[in-house]
């Protein structure tokens, strides 16, 4: 893979927006079958250009208009906002107060930085294979809830390009949800509470809601390998002191002594579980499986940023946008293969541009007419790069949206015929 040099971005982006960006699929998504008039035309986009110039309230008439503008402006970053009451690029002409955000997908942003208190390998913007499992667990837990509890069908998970993942929930009814309901959904999905000054961030009550128990079952599948091996959370005194802060003081001494006897986190964790269950039940301190689960949740459960999800007009990084610092493309994640997803194998803009060059050199020999070959290239270009499998995932997502839409239209026309 080509190493990415941010200085090359202007040139790389030019090529990317001319030959690789999947405009057809992108438009197919945001147009949502053209069922609602002007849905695409009223959508806000924002561009970040070279030298950090940021422009909001961009909107486009159709796919071709979008293409032309993006090629002209060569944005470093693209964000998607809400569908408004009027064309965003004309918002200044609208009477004060009449220009309103009306609909948007329900979005989630899960950021590795928010786990800094519980990961030992990296901090802030860094990620590695040892801590990426946190994202895997987050996707599994959140996606299960969105699908099974809330009944959301069209969920698109995207790698953000550096240190996290995004989720776009695109069901028709979901796009209409109010800010209050969106906040409520985030609340439902939240278990880890408290900032730096709070030691114990998860408190379970006697009655365990099915959401919590199902999430714990997911974490259980990964806990040993992720926490006890990769993160080695009971490796030494410094690390196990953090765990002791989450259990009653009465067993601290016993734990400190006995931890010394064991050689690795696995053994210490087993001992910890036993020590908790021996705790006298009559005392007020919690014991038994609840305490064990609280620790597991604090170390593994997803942290959500409510501000990203609750605002209808919130702008979030677009799929297939490029990350200016890493060069990685924000690609869709295949839910069927979420355990195998490796952020370090996600194509960068330099690598796919390089692949494209290699193909063109080969093809040029075959086609004579440059204009003809240009068009032919456009339709096949991304397919011949490492971007192809990710676009396939996206197309599957679009297929599902189409199917749902047809189903709904059929239902509605049936009802109308029923008289």
């Amino acid at each position, binding site marked *: 893979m080509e190493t990415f040099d941010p200085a090359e971005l202007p040139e790389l982006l030019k090529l990317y927006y001319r030959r690789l960006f999947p405009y057809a699929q992108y438009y197919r998504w945001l147009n949502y079958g053209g069922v609602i008039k002007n849905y695409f035309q009223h959508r806000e986009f924002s561009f970040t250009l070279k030298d950090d110039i940021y422009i909001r309230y961009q909107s486009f008439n159709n796919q071709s208009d979008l293409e032309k503008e993006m090629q002209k402006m060569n944005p470093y970053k693209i964000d998607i906002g809400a569908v408004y009451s009027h064309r965003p690029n004309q918002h200044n002409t609208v009477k004060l107060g009449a220009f309103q955000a009306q609909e948007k997908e329900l979005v989630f942003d899960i950021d590795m930085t928010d786990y800094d208190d519980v990961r030992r390998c990296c901090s802030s913007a860094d990620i590695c294979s040892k801590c990426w499992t946190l994202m895997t667990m987050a996707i599994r837990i959140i996606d299960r809830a969105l699908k099974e509890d809330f009944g959301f069908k069209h969920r698109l998970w995207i790698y953000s390009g550096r240190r996290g993942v995004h989720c776009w929930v695109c069901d028709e009814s979901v796009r209409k949800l109010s800010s209050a309901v969106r906040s*409520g959904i985030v609340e439902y999905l939240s278990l880890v509470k408290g900032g730096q000054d709070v030691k114990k961030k998860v408190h379970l009550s006697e009655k365990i809601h099915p959401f919590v128990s199902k999430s714990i079952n997911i974490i259980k599948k990964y806990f040993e390998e992720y926490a006890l091996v990769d993160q080695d959370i009971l490796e030494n005194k410094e690390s196990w002191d953090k765990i002791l802060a989450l259990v009653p003081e009465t067993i601290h001494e016993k734990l400190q002594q006995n931890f010394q006897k064991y050689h690795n986190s696995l053994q210490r964790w087993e001992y910890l579980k036993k020590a908790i269950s021996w705790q006298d039940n009559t005392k007020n301190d919690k014991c038994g499986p609840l305490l064990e689960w609280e620790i597991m949740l604090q170390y593994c459960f997803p942290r959500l940023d409510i501000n990203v999800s609750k605002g209808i007009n919130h702008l979030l990084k677009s799929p297939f946008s490029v990350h200016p610092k890493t060069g990685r493309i924000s690609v869709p994640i295949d839910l069927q293969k979420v355990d195998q997803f490796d952020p370090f194998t996600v194509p960068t803009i330099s690598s796919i541009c390089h692949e494209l060059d290699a193909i063109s050199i080969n093809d040029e020999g075959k086609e004579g007419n440059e204009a003809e070959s240009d068009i032919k290239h456009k339709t096949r270009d991304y397919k011949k790069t490492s971007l192809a499998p990710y676009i396939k995932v996206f197309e599957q997502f679009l297929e599902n949206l189409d199917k749902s839409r047809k189903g709904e239209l059929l239902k509605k026309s049936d009802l109308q015929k029923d008289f």
Partner: protein
Amino acid sequence: MQFSGGKRKKLRLTGDQRSVCYPHSLQFYLEPPSESISLIEFESLAIDRVKLLKAVENLGVSYVKGTEPYQSKLENEIRKLKFSFRENLENEYEPRRKDHISHFILRLAYCQSEDLRRWFIQQEMDLLRFRFSILPKDKIQNFLKDSHLHFEAISDEEKSVREPEILASSPSLSGSKTELELESVYKIPFADALDLFRGRKVYLEGGFAYVPLKDIVAIVLNEFRAKLSKALALTARSLPAVQSDERLQPLLNHLSHSYTGQDYSTQKNAGKISLDQIDLLSTKSFPPCMRQLHKALRENHHLRHGGRMQYGLFLKGIGLTLEQALQFWKQEFIRGKMDPDKFDKGYSYNIRHSFGKEGKRTDYTPFSCMKIILTNPPSHGDYHGCPFRHSDPELLKQKLQSYKISPGGIQQILDLVKGTHYQVACQKYFEMIHNVDDCGFSLSHPNQFFFESQRILSGNKDIRKESIQPETPQPKPSVQKAKDASSALACLNSSLEMDMEGLEDYFSE
């Protein structure tokens, strides 16, 4: 709603049509009434509902909502006032109609300020909660449907499949299987159960919340509150048009401040109190507002205008004659180094005025609790007002401690004050100083406090003849005589004037 001048126009409906109008004993008040009624009925319906809502408030703080005594007492009140409450009763058309119309009239009166709105919504919600709680299970579904709430009960099989999850999710269920078997569970779109699902207090599956009946009530009440709140805001906007109708304006203003009991102006007990009894009576039988005024008068040998009004009229109500009153005030003011002549010139005229011996010769009535609580709040240097409403809680606590109220009693009183139940707090004070569990009356007037206290202390003898139930209205004799609406209204107006006229002109500092 159209108001016809004085004539009574009643829609005549046949039996069938009547029950169609009001299919349920309770309602969401979605549609305003469209018939014509007379002004007399307008007023009496409204007053009855105010009484009902006050009873709801009182019972709500005296008993735990939902428990047996609360339920049965509330049912009694509703039945007494002839409002609707139960399904399956005969001849329910009138009570339901009354319920419907009176609710809408009160919207006009109670939409005007944030405090009034809050109070009105709270009592209406409690009333709805009670009525909903006695709805038979098979009627619930229909009521919900008619109120445009799309809640469906799930079948027993659907319930048993999800039994463990529903039990694990709903805090309102104790966790026993048998309880769930008996309870209905409703399937509603998750977005309609926001308050439940955001705190993970309900089981979610496939986009639906599985809500046990107990929690459905919370959702229904929230819906009701939201709708009523919006409706009141709308009503407030159209209020200027309503208020410009001269027939309605005084009625509406009066309603929200209404005191519907005795006015203690008739001097049945005149002359039965001697001046040297007052000090002792102030600690034994005076409500805290008057006790505090008396103490301030004794200590400072003076009271400002607001205090003189409130306390002076109260003393008249407990039986002081004009001569006694003049002597009482003069004695005290002279102790404060006031010149006797100055007193005669400045203050005695005012005292005679308040007894109706000067000027317009109107016999002013002692202030009711509502009046003291709602009007003329005290400022620095004043001692009038209601201590439960106007005193800082810390100061109130100290005062109660100095009155030797037990810490437990003080805490109960402070809790009631926090809940803005000032008169109930005063009732609690009454119960503590008389050492009774239940004061046996609903306090709405300081003289009522005195009267009831004397009753208990004298062992109830000889007072029965003179006791008058404060709950049943004592409409002014002049109003009862009037046969047509306009003169009735005129009389009402004049009595209102009596109650609410500012006496500032006559009194100067």
